[in-house]
């Protein structure tokens, strides 16, 4: 995944995985309040991110994640680390 594609890829994934309206996926959108995602959804999102990035995601990486933009940052951080 190229860095400039991260947001679009994340958006497509969220739309497909959680049946969300594409228009609702903005960097500012809050996962819980705006997109109605809960703790179980977060687990599935992490599983998906691991597939997307080929990197292991630790729950700590996700602790402070609140918005779609936060998720994007986590992905970018993961991609900056060497692939296993």
């Amino acid at each position, binding site marked *: 995944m190229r860095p400039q594609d991260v947001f679009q890829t994340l958006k497509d994934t969220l739309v497909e995985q959680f049946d969300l309206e594409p228009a609702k996926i903005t960097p500012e959108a809050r996962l819980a309040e705006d997109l109605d995602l809960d703790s179980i959804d977060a687990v599935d999102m992490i*599983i998906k991110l691991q597939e997307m990035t080929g990197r292991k995601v630790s729950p700590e990486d996700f602790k402070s994640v609140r918005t779609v933009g936060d998720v994007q940052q986590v992905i970018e951080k993961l991609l900056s680390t060497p692939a296993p």
Partner: protein
Amino acid sequence: MSRRVVVTGFGGLTALGHDWQSISASLRSNRSGVVRMQEWDKLDDLGSKLAAPVAPYTLPPHYDRKVRRSMAPVAVMSTRASELALEDAGLIGDPILKSGMTGIAYGACAGGAEATMAFGRMGEHKSLRGLTSNTYVQMMSHTGAVNIGLFFGITGRVIPSTSACTSGSQGIGFAYETIKHGQQTVMIAGGAEELSMGPTAVFDTLFAASRRNDAPTTAPRPFDKKRDGLVIGEGAATVILEDLEHAKARGARIYAEVMGFGTNSDGAHITQPQMETMARVMELALEDAGLPASTIGYVNAHGTATDRGDVAESIATQKVFGDSIPISSLKGHFGHTLGACGSLEAWLSIEMMREDWFAPTLNLDEVDPACAKLDYITGEGRKLQTEHIISNNFAFGGINTALIFKRWN
């Protein structure tokens, strides 16, 4: 404290329609739900390619992602059948559902096949890939029961009646006992089964699945001389049971009264049915109902069209009810819907009693001389008025059930 228990709602998804009107029309025209499963051709060593899949159904929009994420098909069908049944009972939105006074007794052979395979792949590929937060809850054996609970906000007791072919009948039986003894006022009871190749393979391995692949609707053939095994079916059926006084107080339509339930086990062989305990379970239900055998006017048989099962069941039935008792099995129409058959057959037997007409055993052309003499209903069915019926089911491991229902006048 002993309360009277009545049936106030029915709902189901079946191979022959999703309401009594459509199912009744199919039964009266001797329509079969059995088809040849072309996609099973990829399994060369599977001899039986027949099944009776549920007819197509659409879910209302409120079955959104969050509702469905924890549901395998078996749980979707369990929940939708229960919603239809609660609608039928006039209980959707009733505060009783969330009061702690409503419970669930529901089962199936197992959870979702896809989810089970995901765990299988884990063992095979030594990787968690493909597992999600919901894979386990879709696979677990009580997935139907708890998804129903979640969907309606049920806070009463949940009794997973996961006992293969007696899941639905034990669901009704345990629900009846729960209300009878005052622990709950309303119970959502029944069973479901999603179609997968697994169960057919199970019976295929035991040489007990029909291989009439070129003539699907001529199988299965319960009690028939030329029967060659069962056909697996798919569906879900929910029966709403209610404390009689509660039902009366809210002016509910009452379909029937649950008079008796018997369940026991063979304690003998894992797959071979035992006619002594099969007969005994029918007596247990009669004793529970306080009725002599002579009051029963119709027997809805388990009748799966296996070689040994039909013989043992017919002998057991004759021992209890004599050789002139009218009897039929619905497996010829629906195949063997496993976890669903107990509640599906209880529902349809009550509806048939209300219409004074009982369906024949489809494909029963010549009774096997090895089966005991009984008044087997064949052909166009039978006009018959009776006050009491019994519905019997039997499961692997030697679990037996019998349910007695009384016409509501």
